[in-house]
């Protein structure tokens, strides 16, 4: 965890649901949120819902593409397709929880790195960079 997070005692998260599951992605990882039909799209796009949930994770009403940033803040040429973002929030570290040890042993995706509680609902923290590496979109990071 970087010092900024500790100093701020929280994370800035973009929230969205896929297949009725709440996900939170750190704001700094996303350079741009764009329409999936636009001309300014990353060349490699992974459909997050289909990867995680198969057919039941299909995006409805088009969704949005989250283009990624690299370490310098510039946009990278890959991203994910997911449902429309619902909110951008600052969530306190008090509402962030490690995944239970059992889940840590059983989960396939290392990109799911924690849980958080938002309005009583349990959400999953998703590291986009790691996710793209895991599913082979970002071959350099892999």
């Amino acid at each position: 965890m970087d010092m900024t997070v500790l100093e701020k005692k929280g994370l800035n998260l973009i929230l969205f649901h896929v297949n009725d599951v709440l996900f939170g992605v750190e704001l700094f990882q996303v350079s741009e949120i764009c329409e999936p039909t636009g001309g300014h799209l990353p060349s490699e796009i992974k459909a997050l819902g289909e990867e995680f949930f198969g057919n039941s994770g299909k995006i409805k009403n088009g969704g949005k593409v989250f283009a990624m940033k690299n370490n310098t803040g510039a946009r990278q040429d890959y991203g994910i397709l997911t449902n429309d973002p619902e909110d951008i929030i600052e969530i306190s570290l008090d509402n962030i929880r490690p995944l239970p040890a059992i889940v840590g042993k059983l989960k396939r995706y290392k990109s799911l790195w924690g849980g958080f509680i938002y309005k009583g609902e349990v959400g999953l923290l998703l590291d986009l960079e790691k996710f793209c590496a895991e599913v082979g979109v970002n071959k350099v990071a892999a």
Partner: protein
Amino acid sequence: MEANVNNKTESRNDEIMDSVRERLSASKIVDVNEDTVQLVFFTLLGSHYALHGSDVKEILYPRKITPIPGTPSYLLGLINVRGDVESVLDFNLFLNLSKEPDSPNKRILIAEKNGLKTGIMVGSIVDVVDIPKSGIGATIATLNDSIKDFVVGETKYKENSAVILELSKIFQKMDAD
């Protein structure tokens, strides 16, 4: 007169001694109780099972479960328990049993052993009872293979046979998955 007083005293002393004997006898019953084990009885598809009471921390009503992608199907997901995040297992799936029908009696047992903790969805909670250790017998040979590995014994609950499961064996299996 003196004999009368003596008789009264003797009778009183007898009463005291009877009372003392009763107390001693009661303490013997407590000794017997010390040789018991607390079991939490629950059902899966109507059959009785039990976990050791010392391993069960809490019993909850079902609530919204957040599924976790890329985990075995028996891991239903995560729940909010007063601001903490706990996992929930579908015991039927884990034990290779048929799906539990929807019912208002379903409950989530929060179980913990050796530093590992999880919720376990069961068909219903039946009772929490202290059973004498002598009332726990060996497992019958006809048990389903998928359950055998987790069983430490068998007992009776109101004429029903109940299989006692060992939580640490369940965690060991999950560790191997």
